[in-house]
C-alpha cells in the first residue's frame, strides 16, 4: 500500500482527530481513549472467543501485528522479515528457560533483547535500501536468520524446534499464578500486552510518532524539514522488532515449544496479512486482523487441510476490493456518516 493511500486511510478514518468542528466528535473522543477502549475490549474478549486458548493466541498475534504495524502502517515501510523478530523473541525466551532455567519474567526480557539485537543488525542493512527494495532485503535477511537458527541445533533444536519450555506457574512476589488455567494465562498475558499497547500509544502521540507519519507521507519533505530520516526509520525498525520480539517471547511460553516455522517466511507473511486484513495504520486494526486471521485459519482448517488456498484468495480480494482492511473500512464509514 502506498504512503498516499495509507495516509488517506488515516485522514478518513484513522486515529487522528478531526479538523472540522462539529463532525467526527465521537471518533475523536474514541481516538483520545484508544488505549482504554482497546483494553476494555481485550478484557471481555475471552467471553466472546470460541475457546480460551485461541483467545491467548489472538492476543499474542495481535501484539505481533501491532509491532509490525508500527513499521508498515505508521512509517510506511513494508517489511517481509518480521518472522526473524517473532522467532528471535521466542527462541530468546525459550533458550533462557530451557538452557539457563531463568524466571519467565527474565526470559521475556531476554527474548525481547535478542529480537531487538536482530532488528538492529537487520535494520542497519535494510535501511540502506528504499521503497520496494526494502521488502526484498528484509525478506532475504530474515531467511538468513532462519538458516542460522536452523543450523544452531544445540541451542535451538534445529528442525524439531525448541522443546521443553515448561512454565506451569508464575511465582510473583506475594502470590503464584497457575498458568494451566487458560483464564489466568489470558489475563497474565494481557497485563503485558496491555502495557505494550499503552507504550505504543504513547510512542505514536510523541513528536517521534508524528515524525514517523511525516516520513510515511513524504520522505523527501521530512528530510527537508531537518529530520534525520534514516535514523528515525532505523529506530522505528528496532522498536517494531522489539514489540514483535515481546510477542514471540510470550508465544514461546504460551505454546511451550518454538517450532522452527516461527522464523519462516510464512510467519513474516502472516504479519503482513493480519495488518492488511485488520487495517494498517489504525490503532485497533492489528487485533482485528489477528482475530480475523486466527478465526479464518481455525474455521477453515476444520473444513479442509487446504485452508491456505482460501486464505490466499481472501487476501487477494482484500487487496483488490477492501484495501483499508476491516477496521479501516469501519472507521472510514463512521467518519463519512459524521461520527
Amino acid at each position, binding site marked *: *500500500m*502506498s*504512503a*498516499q*493511500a*495509507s495516509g488517506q486511510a488515516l485522514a478518513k478514518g484513522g486515529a487522528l482527530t478531526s479538523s472540522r468542528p462539529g463532525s467526527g466528535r465521537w471518533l475523536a473522543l474514541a481516538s483520545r481513549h484508544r488505549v482504554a477502549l482497546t483494553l476494555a475490549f481485550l478484557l471481555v474478549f475471552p467471553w466472546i472467543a470460541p475457546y480460551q486458548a485461541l483467545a491467548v493466541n489472538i492476543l499474542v498475534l495481535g501484539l505481533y501485528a501491532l509491532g509490525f504495524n508500527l513499521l508498515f502502517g505508521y512509517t510506511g515501510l*513494508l517489511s517481509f522479515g518480521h518472522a526473524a523478530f517473532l522467532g528471535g523473541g521466542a527462541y530468546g525466551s525459550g533458550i533462557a528457560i530451557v538452557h539457563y532455567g531463568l524466571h519467565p519474567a527474565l526470559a521475556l526480557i531476554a527474548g525481547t533483547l535478542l529480537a531487538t539485537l536482530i532488528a538492529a543488525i537487520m535494520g542497519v*542493512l*535494510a535501511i*540502506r*535500501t528504499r*521503497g*520496494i*527494495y526494502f*521488502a*526484498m*532485503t528484509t*525478506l*532475504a*535477511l530474515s*531467511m*538468513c536468520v532462519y*538458516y*542460522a537458527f536452523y*543450523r544452531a541445533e544445540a541451542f535451538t533444536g534445529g528442525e524439531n524446534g525448541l522443546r521443553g519450555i515448561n512454565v506451569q506457574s508464575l511465582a510473583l512476589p506475594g502470590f503464584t499464578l497457575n498458568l494451566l488455567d487458560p483464564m489466568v494465562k489470558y489475563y497474565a498475558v494481557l497485563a503485558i500486552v496491555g502495557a505494550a499497547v499503552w507504550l505504543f500509544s504513547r510512542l505514536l502521540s510523541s513528536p517521534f510518532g508524528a515524525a514517523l507519519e511525516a516520513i510515511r507521507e513524504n520522505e523527501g519533505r521530512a528530510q527537508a524539514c531537518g529530520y534525520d530520516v534514516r535514523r528515525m526509520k532505523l529506530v522505528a525498525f528496532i522498536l517494531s522488532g522489539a514489540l514483535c520480539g515481546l510477542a514471540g517471547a510470550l508465544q514461546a511460553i504460551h505454546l511451550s515449544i518454538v517450532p522452527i516455522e516461527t522464523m519462516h*517466511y510464512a510467519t513474516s*507473511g502472516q504479519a*503482513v*496479512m493480519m495488518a*492488511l486484513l485488520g487495517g494498517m495504520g489504525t490503532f485497533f486494526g492489528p487485533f482485528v486482523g489477528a482475530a480475523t486471521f486466527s478465526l479464518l485459519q481455525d474455521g477453515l482448517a476444520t473444513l479442509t487441510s*487446504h485452508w*491456505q*488456498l482460501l*486464505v*490466499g*484468495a481472501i*487476501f*487477494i480480494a482484500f*487487496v*483488490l476490493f477492501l*484495501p483499508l482492511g476491516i477496521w479501516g473500512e469501519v472507521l472510514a464509514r463512521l467518519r463519512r456518516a459524521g461520527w
Partner: protein
Amino acid sequence: MLQEDAPVNDITLAGFPLDLLALQLVTGVALGAIYVLVGIGLSLIFGLMNVVNFAHGAFFMAGAYVGVFLYGYTGNFWVSLVAAPLAMGLLGLVVERVLVRPLYGRGIDDPLLLTFGLSYVMVESVRIAFGLTGLPFGAPPELRGAVDIGIGYFPLYRLFLIAFSLVVVGALWLFIERTSFGLVIRAGARDPQIVQVLGIEISKVWLAVFGLGCALAGLAGILAAPLQGVTPEMGIPVLAEAFVVTVVGGMGSLAGAVLAGLIVGIVVAMTSLVAPDMTKMAIFALMALVLLVRPRGLLGRAGALG
C-alpha cells in the same frame, strides 16, 4: 558436490587442488544460470512496471511441476522445456490482466501484496493437484552422465544448463536491444507516459512483459527440476535468492541480474566446498556486503533497463 575421483594435483589453493576449485567454479556457473534466469524475469517485470512479483517463486515451482508432469506423459524433456515456460507465460498473462492491472495507479506495495497472496493460492493448488510431498525427478537419459572438460569429469546436464541459459539470455538480449518491440520495452521503462503519447498502448506492453517474466520463471523451474526434484515449497528459497540477485545486481538492470546471478552461483558452489553448513547463509552475507558497500547494487541505476 565433492567429486570423489577429483584428480590430485600438486598445485593447491587454501588446501584444495586447483582442478577441484576449477570444477567447482563451473558448477557455480551452472547454478548461477538458474539464478540468472530467475533474476532476469524478476528484474524485467520490475524494471518496466515497478511491480515486484512476489509470486515469482511460485511461478518457478509451478513451471517445474508442469514440466515434470508432462515429462511423465510424453517422456520427452524437450516438450517440457517448451511447455513449462509457455504455461507459466499464459498464466502470467491472465494474472496481469485480471489481478494486477486493476492496481495500476494505486500504491507500489499493492501489486506486491496481491502477488504475495497469489503465491499462497498457487502453492496450495499444486499441493491439491500433486500432493504434499513432491516428486523426484532426474536428468533425462540423453543428458545423463559426465563428460571430460579438461579439468575433470563434469555432469552433462549441468553443461547443458549453462549452454541453454546462454542461448536464452542471448536471445533475450537480442530481443530487447535489436527489435522494435524491445525498443518499446526500453522506452516504456524510461517513461511510460511518453510511450503512450507516441501512440503505443503501454498496457499491452506491460501485459507481454509480465507474461515474459513469468515464462522465464517457469523455464528456470523446469531447468532446476533435475537438480533437486520438485516440491510445492521449492519456490520460497528461490524467491529470496532471486531478491538477492536483483539487490546485488541492481534492481531493473538485466546485465546486473546476469552478473549477480553468476556471482551468487559461484559463491554457493565455493561455500559448499569450503563450509557446506554455511552455503545458504553465504548468499545473504554476500547481499549484506553489497548493501554496505554499494547499496544500489553492482550495476544499479534508477529505473532504466540496463
